[in-house]
């Protein structure tokens, strides 16, 4: 991979710092009129998610990280790995639990997910912003209560638990925002 100087640091650039792949969030050039130049850089460690700020001398370089984001179809899990497929090449990738992390609450077979590859290996997985999942367990609904107030927990086919309105029943399909984990609406089968 190419080397990047502090002048090239832009939001979104992926670099290797202390051996870890990082994404640059912000780069602030700091220089007194009569003094040395620095760059205050906010970074996210792509493995741990940690965000922090480091100061570099202007002109320092970092090696670029081979990190790419691909939209892939989620196939299945064997309990140890989660398998994803590139839709154009049919190439399959296996992601471990660390890479899948919280996304596993929302993975439904055949859904398109954003898979971040580091040196060709899945580093993280982002589910679609909205997923449609079946309710496998919830208390019976209250008759006639279709409009207002009150929620109850409902367990989805993935195992995730979301709050749904009282009128929603077991066996129904609901749409959920994966970023907030919030119920959106019922989906007709």
């Amino acid at each position, binding site marked *: 991979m190419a080397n990047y100087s502090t002048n090239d640091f832009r939001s979104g650039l992926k670099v290797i710092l202390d051996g870890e792949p990082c994404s640059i969030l912000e780069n602030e*050039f*700091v*220089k*007194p*009129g*009569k*003094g040395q130049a620095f760059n*205050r850089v906010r970074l996210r460690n792509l493995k741990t998610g940690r965000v922090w700020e*480091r*100061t570099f001398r202007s002109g320092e370089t970092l090696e670029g990280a081979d990190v790419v984001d691909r939209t892939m179809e989620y196939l299945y899990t064997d309990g140890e790995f989660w398998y994803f497929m590139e839709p154009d090449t049919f190439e399959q990738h296996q992601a471990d639990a660390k890479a899948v992390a919280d996304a596993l609450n929302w993975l439904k077979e055949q859904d398109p997910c954003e898979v971040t590859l580091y040196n060709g290996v899945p580093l993280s997985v982002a589910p679609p912003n909205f997923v449609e999942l079946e309710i496998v367990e919830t208390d019976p609904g209250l008759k006639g209560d279709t409009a207002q107030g009150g929620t109850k927990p409902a367990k989805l086919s993935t195992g995730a638990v979301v709050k749904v309105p009282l009128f929603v029943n077991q066996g129904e399909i609901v749409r959920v925002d994966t970023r907030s984990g919030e119920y959106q609406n019922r989906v007709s089968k």
Partner: protein
Amino acid sequence: MDWQPSADPGMLRARAGLLARIRAFFADRDILEVETPLLCEAGITDPSIEALVVERGISLKQPRYLQTSPEYAMKRLLACHGLPVFQLARAFRDGEAGARHNPEFTLLEWYRPGFDHHALMAELAELVRCCLGERPLHYCSYRQLFLDTLGVDPFTAALEELQTVARTRLDTGTISGDRDLWLDLLMSHLIEPQLADRGMCFVYDYPASQAALARIETIEGVAVGHRFELYVDGMELANGYFELLDAAEQRERFERDNLRRRELGLPERPLDERLLAALEHGLPACSGVALGVDRLLMLSTGVADIRKVLAFDWARA
């Protein structure tokens, strides 16, 4: 194509108004407006400032440097005529781009024969008030500022102590360097942000190693450069000197700069022999200051990004 300006019409009007106000301020004081060449045979030796070089042209016998400030030419005027002068000039500094930097920018620079740096600071405060309105005014020596905010003496602390102060508060990675590097780092990262609510804050009497073109004197047992910086609302706005007059010492400082450049692997720069000849001839005792006009406009309009106060920022130029 990003052909549109980066500043809106209101900002262009604010800029024009600010320039008119500055000119009126100097006209009232009978300070002469001058213009000096932008493209000069001598560059700047200061290792922390890089000039842009113009390499080719029928008129060029050798490469010329776009000025990083009009200082040398103005001092030559001063050595000859002894008149107080000011200039609104474009200046260029390679590699300086960010929210507060544009590689091409506008400097207001002026020189006052007979003034020491304290008299010039007072006049600068008047100018800033005239452009920005009332602001609280503070004066603090560089030494006192470090003692008050970080509890460390910038003149006597060991290099390791400066490093420790920085490293306990910041992630400085693999940075290494001399005292001045760590002092600059502490100043820009830890002290500057604390000046945000101090209005106009003058910092004066820098370590001799950071004197640049200021005269050096021994005060309270340490060598200090009679240099000052003005911070307004935490933003560095101006830098001034009680000017060095001694041609031989000036030559030594230029040569030391080039030595440092060699150590850092930077290109050495030809000395400005015309400036040195003017100092040889004799410069009247004077103080001079350079102020970033684009930053003054940022402060007067409450804008945090320099690109918004430029008709066309670097990327659109």
